[in-house]
């Protein structure tokens, strides 16, 4: 029953216009980043045409420095890592609120039960949100590979923002492609938990747009709180804001323990909050 319900929920999540809209917007931002990189690469290539230090200078605009998840300076990178909670919520975050409002919820739970409905809904929202964030990031890496020169980043490069204390920093300098793919996985998890923030919010707001904005607004507020915490305490060397932790190279270090502790907290809060609202809390 659970598998059948999950399959149905996934079909609903991936076969709706909102999922494609989110992918389209994410991909457009991603392509904006590639276009900006292409212009830069072209300009730098002209400047360095007669230079004897081409290979060294090329490191500054190589693939793993210019990738959207690392560079943090292009319009595309700044925009994508600002709006990613909305992109995550758009595909299917609205569904619980919509089904509750329309009455489709009653049709489904009377067939499968509340728990099965919640578990299936949670994973469908999680997977669709994760895909909406990670696919444009992966696409950006692959398309940038056609534009930017490839070289293995070196520790001495001034342009690389990933330093000691960052998650998988050693891998970044030894096997950047594996680092890139693993980071797409981390972004998948961030997209998933951000989308699932819509579930506990689904019973509180009547309008779907309000529900879709909940992850974005919550993460912006959390970002402000984290910025204050980082400025007053001795935590300024750590990146605490989940909004910026989706970036592989935020301003401060993002060690694995911090990254996965925060992901765990977000997962627990959204799962338990959603379970309470969907399964335990009575809908009248």
């Amino acid at each position, binding site marked *: 029953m659970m598998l059948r319900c999950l399959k149905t929920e996934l079909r*609903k999540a991936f076969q709706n216009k909102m999922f494609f809209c989110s992918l389209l917007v994410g991909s457009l931002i991603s392509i904006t980043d590639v276009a900006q990189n292409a212009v830069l690469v072209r300009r730098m290539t002209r400047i360095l045409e007669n230079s004897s230090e081409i290979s060294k200078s090329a490191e500054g605009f190589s693939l793993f420095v210019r990738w959207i998840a690392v560079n943090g300076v292009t319009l595309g990178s700044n925009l994508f890592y600002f709006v990613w909670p909305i992109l995550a919520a758009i595909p299917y975050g609205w569904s619980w609120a919509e*089904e509750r409002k*329309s*009455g489709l919820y*009653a049709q489904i739970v009377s067939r499968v039960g509340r*728990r099965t409905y919640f578990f299936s809904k949670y994973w469908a929202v999680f997977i669709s949100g994760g895909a909406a964030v990670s696919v444009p990031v992966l696409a950006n890496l692959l398309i940038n590979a056609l534009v930017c020169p490839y070289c293995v980043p070196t520790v001495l490069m001034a342009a690389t923002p990933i330093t000691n204390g960052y998650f998988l920093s050693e891998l970044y300098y030894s096997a950047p492609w594996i680092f890139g793919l693993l980071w797409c996985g981390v972004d998948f998890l961030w997209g998933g938990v951000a989308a699932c923030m819509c579930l506990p919010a689904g019973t509180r707001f009547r309008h779907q747009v309000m529900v879709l904005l909940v992850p974005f607004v919550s993460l912006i507020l959390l970002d402000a709180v984290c910025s204050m915490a980082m400025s007053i305490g001795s935590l300024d060397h750590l990146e605490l804001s989940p909004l910026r932790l989706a970036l592989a190279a935020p301003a401060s270090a993002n060690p694995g323990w911090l990254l996965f502790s925060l992901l765990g907290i977000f997962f627990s809060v959204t799962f338990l909050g959603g379970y309470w609202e969907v399964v335990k809390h009575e809908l009248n």
Partner: protein
Amino acid sequence: MKIDITHATKEIGGSILLDDVTLTLQSGRIYGLQGPNGSGKTMLLRLIAGLIRPSSGSVAIDGKKLGADMDFPPSVGLLIENPAFLPNNTGLKNLELLASLKGTTDSGQIRRTLSRTGLDPDDPRKVRKYSLGMKQRLGVAAAIMEQPDLILLDEPTNALDDKGIACICDILRQERERGALIVLACHDAEILYPLSDEVIKVCDGRVERGQMK
């Protein structure tokens, strides 16, 4: 199937929506709920469906209490309030999605149910293009397609023309012959009385057993 509602009261935010309701419902019969708007008909249907739990009292199906021994009646088809579907799918696709949750109904059965309610299974139009009457027929089709033991319908004849109403009444009689227990809320006495084996009057959350055939 036998449903025993014993001294069920439902209170939300200080208002009593169902007040000490005691009823016994048997399979193979149609029970009509009659009462003015806001009298508690829909709330009573939601209580029987397991969508809400009583503040006090109990609802038991074949001796098993809803909310304690089980979450929902084991075999129920319902149309409560508005028929709700995915607007960008066809009627057939919507029913297939709902049927796939339990996996007990094949495509042939779904197509036959659509035809029974007067809808074309091969209609390429999306549900958002359906008229209110067509949505209502689709709602009834969703409620009966799995041949449930318990059918709960809230105003199933809303927005239907005379032909549509006759069609739904025929379907409900056939379902009763099959042995289903049907509870039907309808404000139109001209439809409710001829169709029901027993009419239950609901007023201010209290029930009163009425005419029995």
